[in-house]
């Protein structure tokens, strides 16, 4: 179903991307200082591949997601989706390209319009990006994606507040899938979820990838999560990628000191414990 990527197997190619935000002026006469959120970022995602971008808050990883989807205008650099430079396209052509790249957000409560029914929310990209879909075909597509993320077709008639956090994130994933995109950009998609639900949603991401041949740009601060869903990982810090490689390699032999620091900080069962106070507490 997915469109072929013209010009090679790269679904996404980012070259030397620079993105700056103006900060509040310090003085009336000085130019406003700028914060460089992305400082020359380059990366590629091949068809069917899952690339994770990890970093702490302020590392620029969310800015990267926005720039890739042309929601922000970068100061320099290129973003190629399906081989086409997104910032060189006309608005109409860019809209045509959006079909191939959709996004899943962090907060399952904030990313669904509380005043719209699930069916409307899920069909929004379809209505906006594909013209000439008949009413019956539209209903069928809504039912199809809802079922594919583990919900029921009749859930389309409900409102978001009738669902739990994990189910809402499934709705958000269904919305991202409805145009049959080649690339899903997921910005911290499980960090707001409870542990057991997190595992369900992560498994869903893995299932969908196998079934639909999706590519992921998976943005997270959680290395443990990244380890499960990514083939390759890029470690970001201060707007730059400090280390990139296959997941196994980066986790086993981290090269950059910052990567090592990140990995060491993850709490793990079985690791040496802190000096803990007290010995026993009787049940």
């Amino acid at each position, binding site marked *: 179903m997915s469109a072929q990527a013209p010009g090679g197997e790269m679904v996404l190619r980012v070259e030397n991307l620079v993105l700056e935000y103006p900060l509040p002026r310090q003085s009336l006469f000085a130019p406003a200082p700028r914060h460089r959120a992305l400082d020359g970022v380059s990366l590629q995602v091949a068809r069917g591949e899952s690339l994770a971008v990890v970093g702490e808050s302020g590392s620029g990883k969310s800015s990267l997601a926005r720039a890739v*989807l042309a*929601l922000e205008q970068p100061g320099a650099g290129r973003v190629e989706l399906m081989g086409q430079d997104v910032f060189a396209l006309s608005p109409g052509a860019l*809209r045509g390209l*959006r*079909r191939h790249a*959709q*996004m899943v*957000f*962090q*907060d399952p409560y*904030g*990313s*669904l*319009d*509380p*005043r*719209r*029914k699930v069916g409307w*929310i899920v069909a*929004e*990209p379809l209505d*906006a*990006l594909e013209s000439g879909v008949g009413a019956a075909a539209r209903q069928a597509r809504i039912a199809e994606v809802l079922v594919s993320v583990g919900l029921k077709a009749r859930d389309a*008639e409900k409102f978001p507040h009738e669902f739990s956090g994990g189910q809402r994130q499934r709705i*958000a994933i269904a*919305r991202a899938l409805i145009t049959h995109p080649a690339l899903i950009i997921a910005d911290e998609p499980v960090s707001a979820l409870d542990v057991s639900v997190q595992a369900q949603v992560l498994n869903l991401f893995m299932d969908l990838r196998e079934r639909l041949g999706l590519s992921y740009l998976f943005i997270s601060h959680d290395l443990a999560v990244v380890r499960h869903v990514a083939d390759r990982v890029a470690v970001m810090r201060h707007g730059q990628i400090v280390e990139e490689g296959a997941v196994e390699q980066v986790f086993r032999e981290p090269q950059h000191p910052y990567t090592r620091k990140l990995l060491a900080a993850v709490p793990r069962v079985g690791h040496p414990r802190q000096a803990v106070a007290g010995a026993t507490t009787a049940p």
Partner: protein
Amino acid sequence: MLSEARAVSLREFWLRGRGQANLMIGLAVTLLLIAVAVLSLVWTPYPINAIDIPAKLQPPSAAHWLGTDQFGRDVLSRIMAGARNSIAVSLVAVGIGAGLGVPLGALAAARRGWVEEVVMRFNDFTFAFPALLSAVMITSLFGPGAINAIIAIGIFNIPVFARLTRGAALSLWQRDFVLAARVAGRGRTRITLDHILPNIASLLIVQMTIQFALAILAEAGLSYLGLGTQPPDPSWGKMLNEAQTLMFLAPQLAIFPGLAIMATVLGLNLLGDGLRDLLDPRLRRLR
């Protein structure tokens, strides 16, 4: 599908709202006002402008419940007809304010940049004049009359709605579901119509009731100054104006229109407060 959602929310509205004294009193007063205004179209105790000099300046009695004015006209009939006038003026004035202010505010929030600057500077400019003063200015430029009063009051309502809409819309534009709509390829206009406006509707409704009360006051004020409704059409403000010179002779002429204005404004404000409590999800949870 839409009606189904509406029916649920109306029922919910009633279930949650009936416990609130503010809301219920405000609603009752407002409905009474509307009922009186509608009734005055088909029936008043006396014809509104029927002059009956022998019966002038009568105190309240069984024949004239609220007495008569200096021309012998029935005060109750004129207050009833004045309600119609007040509602018409405020409805149109708030309509102008919201009709222009909401799109301007939504546009400013959606476009940002120089569009926002222009809209907001226009707002500041309008805000810089005291509302009543600018109304006086407009009516003195174009001549007194109900239509000009409506326009004047409407214009000073524009920045109120523009500012409110922009503020609320700006925070919505930061929300993820709006970002999701942009990822879905929605244009700014469609996002404004589909996501922004439905989510600030409750806020606007509350503001409308408050502006409605202010418009009634402003119309009364302008008419009192002789810049609003022209005789012989009845208006609460006009009635107060005419009662001024007869204050000691026939205080009821000032008291009853004054009470009508007070009750209406109070009722609408209570309704606005009640609606705000009812529609604000954060306050709802605290209850």
